[in-house]
């Protein structure tokens, strides 16, 4: 399942990123690695907003093209 397909409030774990080396490095640098837990804050139109692992932590907006390159596994939905 891709990050772009997750509804708001879904919590999931990153499994893989299928992207070129440049984009991949940027995502990894921000914390999108295999095993990282993420929560979807908003998924409305052109972009997806996700919070990363650490609670009050980093919130990142990804354009849909990027969110479609991140493979996730859903762990829980609320």
């Amino acid at each position: 399942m891709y990050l772009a397909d997750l509804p708001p409030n879904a919590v999931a774990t990153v499994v893989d990123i299928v992207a070129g080396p440049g984009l991949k490095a940027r995502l990894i640098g921000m914390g999108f690695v295999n095993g990282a837990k993420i929560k979807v804050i908003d998924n409305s139109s052109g972009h997806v907003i996700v919070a990363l692992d650490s609670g009050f932590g980093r919130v990142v907006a990804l354009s849909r093209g990027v969110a479609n390159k991140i493979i996730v596994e859903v762990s829980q939905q609320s």
Partner: protein
Amino acid sequence: MSELRKGQCDSVIAVVGQPNVGKSTLFNVLTGRRERVGNFPGTTVAMSIGRRRYGDKTMCFVDLPGIYDLKAVSLDEKIARDYIVFGDWDAILILVDLTGGLEGLYLALQVLQLTDRAVVALTKWDEVTKRRIRVDLDGLSRILGVPVVPISALRGEGIEDLLKALESVVETSSRKAAKGIHIDYGSLENTLNSIVKEVTNSFKSDRIDPRGLVALIARGNIDIAEKIGLSHIARVLEDTAKSMNIDVGEHIAESIYRFIRGTFTSLIAIEPLERFEKKGFAYKVFGNPYTGFVATVATLFSAIFIAFAVNTGFPFTTILEALGRSDLAEALESYTISGLISQAFDYLKNWVQSSLGSAHPVLASLLANGIIEGVGVVSSFIPLIMITMMIMSAIEDSGLGPLMAISMHSLFAKFGLSGRAIYPLFISLGCNVPGVMASRAALDDAERFEIIAAASFIPCQARLIVMLALVGFLFPGNPALQALVVIGVYFGGAVLYLLTAKIFRRGVLRVSTPPELILELPSLHKPSLKVVWWDSWSLTKHFIVRAGTVLVLLVAVVWALTSFGPEGFVEDPSQSWASNIGRLIGYAIKPLYGLSEDSSWKIGFALLTGFIAKENLLATIAVMTGAEEYQSALQALGLTVAQGIAILVLFMYYVPCLATVSMIYAESKSIRFTLLVVAYIVAVALLASLLVYGTAILLQH
């Protein structure tokens, strides 16, 4: 960097951190002014340092670009990485923002693998305590193996402790070789260990732990292996990747993150992700695609409106004039900031003319119209740029900027721009000079150059005044048609802005992928006055120093062209070289629009003076036709409606003004790019204006 040593630095400290970590703010309280000390080795990127006295020593802080990862993809990352690995520093100051979560430690650990001659500063400590994030500082320091100092640059707290910690690292570090923090790479350990031996033999540095360097190379920095003469490491790593069927670089990154999660969750108490929610009105409004669009446009529009009202009295002056109260309009205008500045410089010019004019007419003219005029033009831009930059910094500092960018992104992405390109577009409506400067909001260099090239198609306020006069003359008594034309010109400008971005992206910068947005959303907060002041003042200084000097020079050149002619010094500009150039331009455009001999050279000369400043377009035509006011001046040109509209279009887009050209040069640092942009704009404007001319003639028949 032996220059740094010679330049009175007792110790050199490299400062590194992720973007938005609070580095600029820290530099401002720590060292104040930053000065340029040449370029980073092998690049044209300026290296700047700040100095700070501590005891009887001077510490020099090197400002490294903000990066997320030491794996170097962009130039910024390469600069930071190479300076850390090869630079001549005494200690590294690593900034970590825990309000950004534990991910902030990722960069810190990569650096700490390389060396323990470092201090970790936990930034925004006021915010960390406010959010009740509990941190075990001693535990953290023990695991990281370096001093950990909480600081709040905004409140000036922890700075002394930080300096003390840095000083003690500098004092003690030279006695032993650096040792990096040990992170376990599991199945990769054997391969890594075998490489460590080779690196130890060929790379001698007591600052860098060979094991850390190997991890850095394996993370995906093969070029470092080449630099230290071990290019065959690439093959070793490839073989390992094949035989183990893993991506080595990713394995390294994952191990570091696993180490962070395993080690620090017990030391730093942060709320679990499940309970996390991004609340707040602003998020709701800007997150929604429709309200977000409207809110962004409304916010930026009112910001520009305020900046211009304060600075030039526009649009109130125009409204008063329309109401027939030009006396009030004039009074208002003379008390605005730019009004006051121009009065002061006019006074100075008159004084020079009257005290020198009779004895040395050429010298007086050079001083008054060549030099004072140039300085005056630069000064008149300063408050405008300052105010616009303050508004932009406030939006950016509050955290609203990234939200605005995502609300515009879908639309802009179609044209090879990211949502952040909305700023320069709006700022350019006021004035193209800060508009070009706002290209710095871009996500990457390609986008920045696209914006620099495109910004001057947006009609600025000076052109709006020209436009209003022209439509008033062309369609008297038809306000609906007037409004339609004005809207059309703005719409055309916006379309040209977007298309130009696309054309430059594909054709000049050769990037074919659409821009993707990966943007950290900082939490919203009230902008700090200090930060806004620092940011806007440093940008304004950039304008004064870089663009201002070019502008003063160009004004002096223009003075020479208008004051000298074939017969030497002339009082009357119509006898000057400039008027000859105007005549040439006139000849060139005459057949295109079927203009009369007389009006073509007047328009040509106006185009030339309009290049100096767009306000001059009308003023020149008025002077040349000897008319008292604009309507009769335009009348005297005897234009048909089709010609009039075509000239209007030409006037609106034909060339960036002198100040904007200076800014394009200051931002691109390339004469070739600047000339290319100017030539492109002239060509596009001519084409657009001829198209409009042709269409208008067809419509008339």
